[in-house]
């Protein structure tokens, strides 16, 4: 509502026109991905936010809901060098960096592996089934995500444009390795992908032959709708241009307090001892990521200021996986965290 009346990015900065162009490109990007991914506009919007917030994304969902398709579509529309790897139990960190094989002359050779294959221009690194990989691999990934650099062949490799997408299915628990808290905290968002509920969308997904051949579906998308080399600059401009008022800052801090001490604001969840529920979480990095994502969302909506609606729209994907519960409540995590986040927004007044 009423976006148009308060629309308009600030005109006083020289980058305003270019930000407006970036916004058009972002919307075109969403539309392009939406051609291949139907029934998930929410997920596509969050991915777009993550791209402009320069954050890594973990997709989670049942088997076959289209996690991989979404990430492939995003990677294609984003353009730039793209690499993917499948998580397996026997995958070792070195397998990500080096490819060892025997060449035509029968000599063993070591070449750059998936991460290094495209050099430092790598734009998207897609880690499929991340929870099947071992903690050693997680640890390397952690560095790749946090510092956007690795050490290989005796030198430092830096990936300024890199964005890591990962997915994991939540069905299987055997032969999987839960991501350590530090690794999870480094994902900007953890997006849950659900089966579309809309009947028409379901019918289309099941009966339209277009969706049966994923390679052709993805191949039909326009490549490089966004210029991945400019994303870092655009992201910085967005963070500098979109304002947060003192009221909003107070609001976000109140949300943070409510997450850390739910019982202090009267949050109660059925069958949960609120005093011992929260073990940790809501790190400063997490709340910073929340504000970053909220700014991008406001910009995508065509606003120059962040509203509580923006915070709410990105809160669950950004914050839910950073809340660490007492182990006895981990089993019921989905329900408890969803209820906690919902109640935090019900209790915290805005403005």
């Amino acid at each position, binding site marked *: *509502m*009423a976006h148009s009346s308060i629309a308009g990015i600030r005109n006083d900065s020289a980058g305003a026109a270019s930000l407006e162009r970036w916004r058009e490109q972002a919307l075109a990007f969403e539309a392009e991905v939406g051609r291949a991914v139907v029934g998930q506009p929410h997920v596509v919007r969050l991915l777009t936010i993550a791209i402009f917030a320069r954050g890594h994304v973990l997709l989670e969902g049942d088997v076959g809901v289209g996690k991989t398709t979404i990430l492939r579509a995003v990677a294609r529309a984003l353009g730039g060098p793209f690499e993917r790897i499948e998580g397996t139990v026997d995958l070792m960190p070195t397998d990500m960096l080096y490819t060892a094989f025997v060449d035509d002359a029968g000599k063993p050779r070591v070449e750059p592996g998936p991460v290094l294959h495209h050099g430092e221009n790598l734009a998207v690194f897609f880690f499929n089934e991340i929870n099947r990989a071992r903690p050693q691999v997680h640890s390397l990934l952690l560095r790749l995500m946090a510092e956007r650099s690795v050490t290989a062949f005796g030198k430092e490799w830096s990936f300024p444009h890199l964005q890591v997408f990962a997915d994991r299915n939540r069905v299987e628990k055997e032969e999987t390795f839960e991501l350590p808290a530090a690794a999870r905290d480094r994902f900007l968002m953890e997006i849950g992908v659900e089966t579309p509920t809309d009947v028409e969308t379901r019918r289309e997904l099941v009966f339209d032959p277009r969706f049966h051949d994923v390679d052709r579906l993805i191949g039909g998308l326009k490549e490089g709708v966004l210029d991945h080399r400019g994303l870092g600059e655009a992201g910085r401009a967005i963070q500098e241009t979109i304002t947060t008022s003192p009221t909003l800052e107070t609001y976000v801090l109140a949300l943070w307090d409510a997450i850390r001490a739910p019982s202090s604001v009267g949050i109660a969840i059925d069958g949960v001892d609120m005093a011992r529920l929260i073990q940790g979480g809501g790190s400063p990095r997490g709340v910073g990521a929340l504000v970053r994502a909220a700014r991008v969302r406001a910009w995508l909506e065509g606003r*120059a*200021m962040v509203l509580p609606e923006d915070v709410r729209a990105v809160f669950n994907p950004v914050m839910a996986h950073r809340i660490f519960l007492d182990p006895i409540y981990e089993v019921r995590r989905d329900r408890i965290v969803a209820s906690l986040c919902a109640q935090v*927004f019900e209790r915290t007044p805005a403005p």
Partner: protein
Amino acid sequence: MAAAALLLAVPASAQVRGAETFGPRPFGVLLGDVFTLKTYVDVDAGFRLDPSSLPKVGPVSYSLDLRRIDVTDGPAPNGGVRYQITAEYQTFYSALETKEEKVPPFTLAFADGAGKRAEVQAGRWSYLTSPLRPIASVSGEQQYGLRPDAAPHSISLRRAEILTGLAGGATLLALALLAWSRAWPPFHRRPARPFAAAARAVRKAAGAGETGWRAAALALHRAFDAAAGKRLFGDDVAAFIKTRPAFARHEAAIAAFFDASRRAFFGEGTNAAAALPPEQLTRLARDLASAERAT
């Protein structure tokens, strides 16, 4: 009645069976006393009293007046008729000492259809009159002295009191209902009427400059929160109005309010009151409170 029966006359003939006169106690009669004599006369069938033979009302003697005379008839034994003649006398005899006085008899005439007549004397009575004497005062005796006025008889007001109480109770109940309906104190914090309380707060605060405007907007926000049962943001307004159609008439004004509130609280400190003047804010709060009453 202390009756004295006097057989005044034997029947003049067989047609008149008897005449008896009864009076009150025949002594202690004072000047001005009224006494009634009742005379019963039985006559044979066919005979009727001649009314003209009755004595006339008026002075009977110089000290005795006949004030009234009534005649009734009824059945007598042997198929005859019993006449009851009630005569009321008043004596004006001022006796100097106790003395016997007499009421003179009167003659009653009876006739049958065939011209036969019979007469009988009746109504004779005598009594003792007493003089009026002043009361000899007895020293120390108080009972004849002036007594205090009798306390006035108080009429019971119980019914009026009950009715007044009921009316008062009904008035209080009606007032309480009105206060509840209008969310006046002590019902002003009723959760079901958040906008009524907000309207009061807005009216008080809205005009008081930028700070007042913000306080008023916050009060209205809290009312929206309470009405929606959660924190209501600008993006939720359309969904909220769908669940509360009573507010649909004010949708544009509500949207304008949220728009102005966004500028004020989340924008770059622009003058909020310019976007939504205090009068409009007050009017919106009042409209919402009235729409809320309609639900």
